[in-house]
């Protein structure tokens, strides 16, 4: 009966043991922090890989001592082989997209703040939530295993015992097919080249595991948001962050299963001898591939990109939500056009499902379908522009408080515009024919999906850190971190556009052998120096993060004078968020500078008496007429 009593009040007692409290916790706040720490670890791996790639591109033939020690086969004498470089490209992309850009924004901040912002005491299914993290974590371990299964002869020999298709130890740090893993090469096994044995198998398994973890998370997010909003928290009173996490969850729920399905088919081609993606009469490395016929390599591209395009919105939508939220808070103004922002999020998410073909313009698709994909792609510019103009409208005429989170949020807008604008170039078939597989594409998606999302997460970290740990992060270090990173990422990725215009191809291990790229040496070197400085500057962030956790200035309940529910409770929040009391919401999420109100912000829970109420005066969004 004891259990029934707990169920009745639906409050789990705070766990006391270390393991239940910090490791296998079902508290959404702990799980959120676990996701953030996972992303902070994964991003280190991804960053080291990008620096290694830059070094090889700039100074081909450099002797890197640590590589010789760790990977004697792939980097004999410390000089990386072209295949080693390709595997770095693959693993950099895979780890960054899945274990950083998908985990931190949604699993991390979404887990921590979605329940609090809607006034719930936890996620709808806390146990599933815990499973979702640990499944994702296992996925991360498997992708790390892929590094050593291919890169280390001992681990490779050990993993080869699993079967023929698991042949490892080929001297790379994973597969060499890029994060898109295009068939048929990814479906063939080790005859396709180094890294294509155990590396690809583990890569597929890791992603499949990741899919399952994400699906559990997405199911939980949607149910929580639909079912557990507190009294008075109507949909249109929710913070835009919640809308963004919700839309992201819907995208994940519908797109990850497709990748999972594709992954299963790919794995079967590799280990069960099927021919889903492998065509007949295929010659690889001068030998005819036996026992396969009739498969369709393009089918993999369709399945992959049907997932892959929504995935880029999965990465960036939470950043958009956080940016809207933070801009409004520090501009001390309501979000300009709240309702339009909500619809724009949905429009971006919805259209995202119908544009996957723009990744495949050069696959030989019918020009008619290419035009359809092109038009749909360009139409995403409309909701994106709505969002951008509304962000600018929110900033217009505001007395901006330039805190670190605000700087990063403004940086997000800047990067989103700078990266998004080239989407309009690449979305056109005729231009994409030229730019496809050049550095122009790399520039586009790094700015808009990679760096912009990361800026959204930086903004979110600096903004919510006081709530999560009860202490402020250092503003001085934060601003220094912002300026170096902001200038740094532009210095890295703007020259990429120029390289793309020169025709510099993606994924090549070195450029010094090409006559037409001789003049770009200086540019390549400049980017590398900028990249190294930017990566080193992230030490400031890591230091600030962990130092402030223990030594930062004590933060009050509401250090930013923000309005949403998480700021009504202590920092850090108690185990069940609202200490057993159901909050009641009376206001929208962004009531800043309301004339007649005693403060320049009205908490969502402030009683109705706080301002006079003239009914029927519902406005059409803050329009900047606030003086």
């Amino acid at each position, binding site marked *: 009966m004891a259990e029934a009593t707990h169920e009745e009040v639906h409050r789990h007692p705070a766990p006391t043991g270390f393991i239940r409290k910090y490791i296998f916790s079902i508290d959404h706040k702990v799980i959120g922090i676990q996701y953030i720490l996972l992303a902070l670890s994964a991003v280190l791996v991804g960053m080291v890989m990008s620096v290694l790639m830059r070094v090889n591109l700039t100074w081909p033939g450099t002797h890197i001592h640590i590589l010789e020690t760790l990977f004697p086969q792939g980097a004999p004498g410390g000089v990386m082989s072209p295949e080693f470089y390709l595997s770095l490209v693959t693993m950099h992309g895979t780890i960054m997209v899945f274990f950083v850009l998908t985990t931190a924004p949604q699993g991390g901040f979404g887990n921590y703040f979605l329940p609090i912002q809607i006034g719930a005491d936890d996620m709808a299914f806390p146990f599933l939530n815990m499973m979702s993290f640990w499944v994702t974590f296992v996925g991360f371990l498997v992708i790390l295993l892929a590094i050593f299964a291919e890169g280390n002869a001992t681990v490779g020999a050990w993993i080869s015992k699993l079967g023929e298709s698991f042949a490892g130890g080929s001297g790379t740090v994973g597969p060499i097919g890029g994060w898109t893993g295009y068939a048929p090469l990814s479906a063939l096994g080790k005859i396709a080249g180094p890294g294509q044995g155990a590396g690809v198998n583990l890569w597929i398994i890791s992603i499949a595991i990741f899919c399952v973890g994400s699906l559990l998370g997405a199911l939980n997010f949607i149910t929580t948001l639909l079912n557990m909003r507190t009294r008075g928290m109507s949909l*249109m009173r929710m913070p835009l962050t919640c809308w963004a996490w919700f839309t992201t969850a819907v995208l994940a729920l519908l797109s990850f299963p497709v990748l999972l399905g594709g992954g299963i088919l790919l794995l079967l081609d590799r280990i069960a001898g099927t021919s889903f993606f492998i065509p007949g009469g295929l010659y690889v490395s001068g030998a005819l591939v036996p026992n396969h016929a009739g498969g369709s390599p393009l089918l993999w591209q369709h399945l992959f990109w049907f997932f892959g395009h929504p995935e880029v919105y999965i990465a960036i939508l939470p950043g958009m939500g956080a940016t809207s939220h933070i801009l409004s808070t520090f501009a001390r103004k309501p979000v300009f056009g709240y309702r339009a922002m909500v619809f724009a999020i949905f429009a971006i998410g919805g259209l995202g499902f119908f544009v996957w073909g723009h990744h495949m313009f050069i696959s030989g698709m019918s020009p008619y379908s290419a035009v359809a994909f092109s038009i749909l792609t360009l139409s995403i510019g409309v909701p994106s522009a709505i969002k951008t103009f509304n962000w600018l409208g929110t900033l217009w005429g505001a007395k901006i408080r330039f805190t670190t989170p605000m700087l990063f949020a403004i940086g997000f807008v800047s990067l989103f515009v700078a990266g998004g604008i080239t989407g309009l170039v690449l979305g056109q078939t005729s231009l994409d024919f030229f730019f496809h597989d050049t550095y122009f594409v790399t520039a586009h998606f790094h700015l808009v999906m990679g760096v912009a999302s990361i800026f959204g997460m930086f903004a979110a970290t600096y903004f919510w850190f006081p709530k999560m740990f009860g202490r402020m992060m250092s503003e001085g270090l934060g601003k220094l971190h912002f300026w170096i990173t902001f200038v740094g990422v532009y210095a890295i990725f703007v020259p990429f556009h120029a390289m793309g215009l020169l025709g510099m191809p993606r994924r090549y291990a070195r450029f010094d052998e090409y006559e037409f790229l001789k003049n770009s040496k200086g540019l390549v070197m400049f980017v590398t120096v900028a990249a190294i400085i930017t990566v080193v500057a992230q030490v400031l962030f890591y230091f600030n993060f962990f130092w402030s956790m223990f030594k930062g200035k004590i933060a009050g309940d509401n250090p930013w004078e923000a309005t949403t529910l998480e700021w009504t409770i202590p920092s850090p929040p108690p185990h069940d968020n609202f200490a057993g009391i159901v909050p009641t919401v009376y206001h929208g999420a962004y009531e800043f500078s309301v004339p007649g109100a005693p403060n320049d912000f009205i908490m969502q829970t402030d009683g109705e008496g706080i301002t006079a109420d003239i009914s029927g005066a519902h406005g059409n969004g803050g329009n900047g007429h606030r003086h």
Partner: protein
Amino acid sequence: MAATATGTNQVVPVGVGGGPRSKNGNGFHKNGGGDGDDMSLRFSPARYRIGVSMAIGSILMLFVALTSSYIVRSASGNDWRPIAMPKVLWLSTALIIISSITIERARRSLKQNNQAAYGTWLINTVALGIGFVASQLVAWRQLVRQGVYMAANPYNSFFYLFTAAHGVHLLGGLCALTYLLVRTRKARGTIDGELRRVGAADAVAIYWHFMDVLWIGLFMLLMFWK
């Protein structure tokens, strides 16, 4: 969408439009009390229903991906050689349709507060579910005896893949049914407990119906899209 204020005395739409304004309760404030502990208001039985609908949505997307691949692949090579359906699959189909009826009976019994009938119908459903799995395995064994292997032909590959993928999800349903049998046969003493019990039974029943419909869809596809 917040306030638009132009005049000085005018003001102020509270609330962001759209949603109903909540009047009940005296509110929760960071400094103040609320109206006591009403966390039990938190559980609404829709939770399980929403959760299972989302799970169904994602599983459906998985099968959309697999069946689209089936249709694409059936046209992409000249090696498509459909097999004759093992007759035992008709038995499977019959079993799962009947199990859909029994789980519905179980659910109705629970709604009518007939605990004994609820337990009985649940047991019947589990038995039928196990029968379905057994029947599928028999179909596999028959095919293997005839030398019909997965890699021989894309149609075979999809046949094994569909039945296996459906089977895995059905086993999940069997686990859920077993959970119902173990944990929800007895009435619980509390309102909240009862809501959860009925909610869980509802959710599992919906999932089980989905498994039924999914199988029929896959079976039809395998039979008629050759």
